[in-house]
């Protein structure tokens, strides 16, 4: 994480390139900041409360706006972010946003179906869908693993911890 701040010198050719995406982040910070301030402005100040519920959001919102503007300036001057490294992260290749989109879609599908289908089915679908999105092509094995995980966790929570997860369509079968 902390390594290689001076790295740009090594590949001088790319040093002056501006990370356009960072302007998006700066804009995001400013928007969140302004929304925080606007939201706070609508609050009523109570009695015997010299600070009131507004001051803190005002400070935070202003902070966000200032940081956002500073970040935009730094970006324009060529400040590069330092994407996080990790065991399975290969930063030498460009980002694969299609996989990320697939994963998010699978997660949202879980949100939409978990109460209807129950955890045992939705959880299994989540596992299979996520593994497939990440490039697994052993569908049969993934389905088996997913089902075992989901059904086992349903029973573990129900019997072991006394927490009844939603049975969904399998109500009465599990």
């Amino acid at each position, binding site marked *: 994480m902390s390594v290689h701040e001076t790295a740009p010198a090594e590949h001088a050719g790319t040093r002056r390139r501006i990370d356009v995406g960072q302007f998006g982040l700066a804009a995001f910070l400013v928007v969140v900041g302004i929304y925080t301030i606007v939201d706070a402005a609508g609050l009523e100040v109570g009695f015997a409360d010299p600070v009131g519920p507004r001051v803190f959001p005002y400070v935070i*919102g202003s902070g966000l706006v200032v940081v956002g503007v500073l970040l935009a300036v730094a970006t324009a001057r060529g400040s590069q972010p330092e994407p996080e490294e990790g065991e*399975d992260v290969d930063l030498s290749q460009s980002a694969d946003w299609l996989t990320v989109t697939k994963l998010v879609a699978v997660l949202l599908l879980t*949100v939409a179906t978990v109460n209807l289908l129950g955890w045992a089915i939705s959880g299994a679908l989540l596992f299979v869908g996520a593994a497939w999105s990440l*490039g697994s092509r052993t569908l049969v094995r993934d389905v088996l693993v997913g089902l075992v995980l989901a059904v086992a966790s349903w029973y573990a929570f129900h019997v072991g911890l006394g927490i009844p997860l939603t049975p969904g369509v399998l109500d009465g079968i599990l």
Partner: protein
Amino acid sequence: MDNFQLLMGGLESALTPMNLLYAALGVLLGTFVGVLPGIGPAMAIALLLPVTYRLEPTSAFIMFAGLYYGGMYGGSTTSILLNTPGESASVMTALEGNRMARAGRGAQALATAAVGSFIAGTIGTILVAFFSPALADVAVELGAPSYFALMVLALVMTTTVLGTSALRGFAALFLGLSIGLVGLDLNTGQPRLTFGVTQLVDRLDIVVVAVGIFALGEALWVAAHLRRKPAHVIPVGRPWLSRDDWGRSWKPWLRGTAFGFPFGALPAGGAEIPTFLSYLTERKLSKRDDFGRGAIEGVAGPEAANNASAAGMFVPMLALGLPVTATAAVMLSALQGYGITPGPQLMTDHADLVWTLLASLLIGNTLLLVLNLPLAPLWARLLRIPRPQLYAGILFFACLGAYATNMDPFDIGLLVAFGLLGLMMRRFGLPVLPLILGVILGPLMETKLREALTISGGDYTALLSEPLAVVIYVLIALFILGRPFIARLRARAEQSADPDELEDEKELAQS
């Protein structure tokens, strides 16, 4: 030796066969999750929290302690056997540890890490037992202004110390503070930043935020940059240490402990600085020339420092109710789940629980050593799980944890939202810890601020009405002024470490 008796009392109530079973289970689960690439100790605890929901507090704490130390040890196993460390505290361990593993001394690296962690954790926990009550006695006298100053200190330190860009640190901090606003204002009962959503009125669950940012964020980030060829895992046998290794390790263990504990206890952002200092010291003191080629001192010292600072973090957490690391933040929120209010009164109101927790830490630490030395080859094999299934499993358990709390799909949705935020933060190099601390400390800060100013009738100079508060603000100012110096020191040390690394890569490519 009053504290000693209390600690023994804690040991007595913790040491039942059933509780030992929970401790063992905690250690195994913690190591299992901690070994998995991309998961650090904070995330291991957050992910496994639902498992402890229905246990009584004593058993839950014991399992917790096991999870905690297990997660920590799992993380160092990963950084020794795979070169790329998952968290900043393991960077120094990976430096020498991975070279030892490549040179066929992986077993010794794991062993010195395990024994060093055990020694540092034990000494650290005993120090916590002696310091926390004393500090809590003092802290009870502290007023809101001092508390407010302490929290400002914790936030400024973590924000500026971690990562290389203070600007990005502050971006993360303010985002976290803003997230911390969501929910009812405690004084006036008005909803803030809830977008009219009823589920948001009750404030956000820190566990959902943490799991979203850590687990989902990491999984999505990995998905965007998945390594096409599997990382190089070095096979390892059963850890052991020769007489020579013991002789070389014991001093670094103690020195690392001495570095780690104070830094963990100060609100200075965890283990990054002490592990780094320990590495530098061992390198300077070493009489041999094998530093940079797998010196055992370079693993023993930083690992001990890492664990001692992990123990030190309990001092502010138990005595002041102030979390200074992500792990402490998650643990505090778990304590609150048992209806326990953190703060200086914790040591007196829930003395039995605190002593049981401390005793559990000692037990967990011991079990870790007993269980993990023989199991190391098995853990190493976990690193070979195919990545699609591994990350699918992480997503599965993250969603399960979020869903199991309230059975509300909305919580999974929230998890996904924070996962996307975590993804964005990784893409733009925003550090995660300032955000988490902002979420948990923000509301506390606001409460203390309003408390202080209600007493003074709105006069802002009241914030400087206590001597400790003034001292802390002076410290913060000094720290900010001294920052360029620290940065230069670090850059120099990294420069001197870098050339060997390049050389090493060449060697590996040739073989």
